[in-house]
Each structure stands twice: as C-alpha cells, then as structure tokens.
C-alpha cells in the first residue's frame, strides 16, 4: 500500500468522525456529542503523532529538507491542537455557538492542510521512502 493511500484514508475517517460529532451537537445530544468528539480528537491526534514521530523525521532525513513543508505541517498541527482544546471546552460548557464556530475554523484549517499533504507531501514521501515498510511502521502506532 502507498503512504498516500494509507494516510488519505485516515483523513477521510477523521472527517467523518467530526461530522458525526457536529451532528450530535446540532441535535443537542450532548452526551453522544462528547463521546463522538472524544473519538475524533483521539484519532486526529493519533494521525498527527504518526506524521510527527514517523513520517516527517524519515522524510526529513531522506530528502534533507528540514525547514520546509514538514515544519509548516507541524505548525498547523499545533494550531489544530489549540482548536481541539477550544472545542472540548465548548463541549464541556454545552456552548453550541462556540463549538460550531470553532469547528468551522478547524475544518477549513484541516481540509486545506490535508489537501497539501495529499497533493504534495505524501506523493513525495512515496517517491523518496519505501512505501510498504513505512505503512507498516505507521500502523504500529495504532489504527485511526
């Protein structure tokens, strides 16, 4: 399996987890929303971990590009982490407006982030790294 295919599937799964949580908030089902959001947050952070601990370091070592795209991706991960915290707080306070507003920002941030990874970073990783071996290493951290 290609790195691009494996990681893109994870993006799609996370999108669905968020959509489910958002739907529960919209319906006012806060208990279900908390449970679904927890899953979304855990899986998103796991995906970030796979990139930051496995994919990015290998990419940087192999290509020698250290201060390039991977740095930018890390920065965006941190922005997403801040928004995830804000979402969790809104959920705790049952603040629907705050949740939806923060969720909107997070979704656009993540979508444009994912697109850049899917269109540029992952294909480059497949070109420069042994795909099968990398997918195996990434899987060892868990499944999204």
């Amino acid at each position, binding site marked *: 399996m290609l790195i691009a295919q494996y990681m893109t599937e994870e993006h799609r799964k996370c999108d669905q987890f968020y*959509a489910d949580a958002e739907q529960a908030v919209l319906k006012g089902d806060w208990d279900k929303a908390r449970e679904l959001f927890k899953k979304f947050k855990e899986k998103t952070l796991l995906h970030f971990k796979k990139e930051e601990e496995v994919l990015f370091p290998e990419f940087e070592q192999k290509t020698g590009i250290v201060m*390039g795209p991977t740095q*930018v991706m890390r920065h965006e991960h941190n*922005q997403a982490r801040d928004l995830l915290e804000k979402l969790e707080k809104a959920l705790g306070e049952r603040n629907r407006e705050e949740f*939806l*507003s923060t969720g909107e*920002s997070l979704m656009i941030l993540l979508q444009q982030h994912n*697109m850049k990874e899917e269109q540029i970073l992952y294909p480059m990783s497949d070109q420069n790294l042994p795909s099968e071996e990398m997918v195996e290493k990434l899987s060892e951290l868990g499944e999204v």
Partner: protein
Amino acid sequence: MTPGGLSLLYAPPFSIVARFFLTASLFGLLGAFLGIYMILKGSFNLQALVHTYTLGFMATTMVGALFQMLPVVAGAVIENPLQKARYTHIFMLSGTLLLVLGFLSSEKPLMLSGLLLLLGGILFITPIMLYKLLRLKSHTPTSSGMRYAIAMFILGTLLGTLLVLSLSGEFSLNYLLLARAHFSVMLFGWVGILIVSVAFQVIEMFFVTEPYPKTYTRWFHPITLALIALSLCGDTWILRLPLSALFIYFALITVLRLRQRRRKIPDPLVNLWYTGMLFLVLSMLIFPFSEFGSKSFLTFLLLYGAFVHSVILAMMYRIIPFLVWLHLSNMGVPNAPTMHEVIKPGRVWVQFYLHIASLFVLFIAFFTGFKAVWFLCSLLYALSFAFLSLNLFRGILVYFRRAYPQGASPQR
C-alpha cells in the same frame, strides 16, 4: 515542490483581500444607485451598468482572491504583494469609475482615461500572475485553471480595449463580432474557468465532499477554450450548445457533491452555491438560443450574473472570517476569534434571503418591465450590497482591532 507555496503561513497580508473585497461590495452598491439614477432619469445604459458589476464587483473580487490564492493554493509566490496590490487596486478602482462615467456621459476623454487606468492595473498584475503560474513545475487542476483564466482575462481586456477605441471613434472594426468575442472570453474564459477551477478545490475543502472526477478536472480548461472558439465561429445555436453542456455538467456535479457532503449542518453558503448552480444551469439553457443583443441575450446575461454573484457571496463569507482567524492565529494573538465570531451565521442567512429576494424582484422587473418594480429591485440590490459591505467591514475591523490593539499603524 515549492515549500513557499505550501501553507497559509505564507498567506499575503490580510489587507490585500480586505481592500479588494470591500471595494467590490461598494461597487455593487454603486451599481444599485446607478440603477436608481437611470430609472429616475428614464434612460438606460447597459454598458455602464454591466461594467460596474463585471469590473467593479466581479473582477475586483477575483483579482483580490487571486492575490490570496496564487501563493496559498497554487504555490506561486508574488514578491512584495502589498505594494503590487496597492498599485493594482488604485488603478482598477479609478479606471472602472472613469470608464463607467465615460459610458454614461459618452465623453471620449473620460472613456479613454478610464481605459488607460484599467489597463495600467490589469495589464500590470495579470502578466506577473501568469508568469508565476507558468513557472510552476507541477499543476493541480486549480492552478492550471488559473493560468487559462488569467490568460483569458488578458485577451478579454485587449478585446475590450479595441471596443472602447472603436466606440470613441479611434478606428472602425467589426464591432458586433468583437463584442461577442469580448463577452465570451470574459464570461466563460475568465469568470467561468476561474470559478470552476476554484470550485474544484474549495467545494471539497469548505464543505468536506468527494473530489470532482479527475478526468473532468483535467480536461475542463482546454475543452472550454476550444468550445469558446467554436461558439465564436458563427452566430448559431448549434455552435454554442457544447459550451452550455460543459457548464451544465459542472453545475450538476457540484450540486451532487454538495448534496453528498459529509457535514450535514445547515449552511447558508451551501444554499448560495445551490442558488449559483441553479442560475448557471438556467443561463446555459438559454445561452445557445440567445442571439447577441436580443432580449433573450439580456436574459442570459442576468441569469449568468446571478450565478456569479451568488458564488462570490459564498466565497467572501467563507474567506474573510477564515482569514481573520488564520492571520490572528499566526500572529500569536491569544484566543483569536473563530469564524462565527467574525461574521455571525445569522447575518449570512439574512444576506442569503436578501439575495434571493433581490434576484426574484429582478426577474419580475425584467419580464414585466414596470418602472415601480425596477425601482424596488434597485432598492433591494442597494440594501443587499450595503449589508454585504457592512458585514465585510465589521469582519475586517475585528482583525485590525485584535491585531493592532493600541492603534499601531497597520502594515498588513
């Protein structure tokens, strides 16, 4: 790969998009006032009104959006963007105003000076943008489409220049053929290709949908170009039909994608896209059978305008709140306001209903021809664009207040 183009971290200063979008919305307002003026005066000037919207509202929005999208979406970085944007903005703004005044008054010096200023703005920035895009080693359907769209904008501008020169009596040309070429290249080549190629990226990104079919995105731009050329080979419906079919297919795929979007949350912007697609389909159904200059041609123009207007609203109301959050977040401003805090969704819903109401009255006015309905229509347009300007202004203000709390001189 161009790492410089890889992130919104490299997004150009916020004030660029802010100034272009705000100016565009004010041009929309000006157009509505112009409508009221024409009704009161009892004389209608199509060129003046059309160019207030096509140049003032549409092109101003699109050039501003390109400043933002070129580095962020396509990976083509424009050096010193603020300086270039300031220059382009001033020239396009003053040029459009003078050209429209020239059309209104039929004053040759006004028309020509407006034209010169516009050329100074458009022909300054578009070749730079095109050059940056042509230098890219790899293309997405969006960045590829931008190349076609900008090239068509340059061609359409040159054709428009010939038209103005011919109108002001500098030399005589086959005016009708040139006018058809000008509107086809501008409406389908520039506006059409740009909207479609941006949609290829933003529909998926903003609404979390499946991507557009790959073969379609790869071939859309060159085929559009070929079909524009075909439609100009003669003034008959059969030559215009394929171009219509291509755009109708785009509208259908877009609606299908939006209907199957993962996030089912009610969103006024999705409704604006639906509205846009509806009007695109209607306009393209009429287009093959609208002879240039006939009433059905005017109907086509109005319907196509409604399509572009709806999509621009959908884009502005997403881009401004996101950029305010993004820039403030990148600047490290604590607790940066998230999107709905910049422009409240309730306001966007009001905008949506105002937009629908003004379109509804526009078509009633067009088909009945009653002066009172035209008047009501202009008032509704004025209200709709005033509301847009106000919302954009308030959103932009949120950024400047949070970014420069002590009233420090904004340079972004």
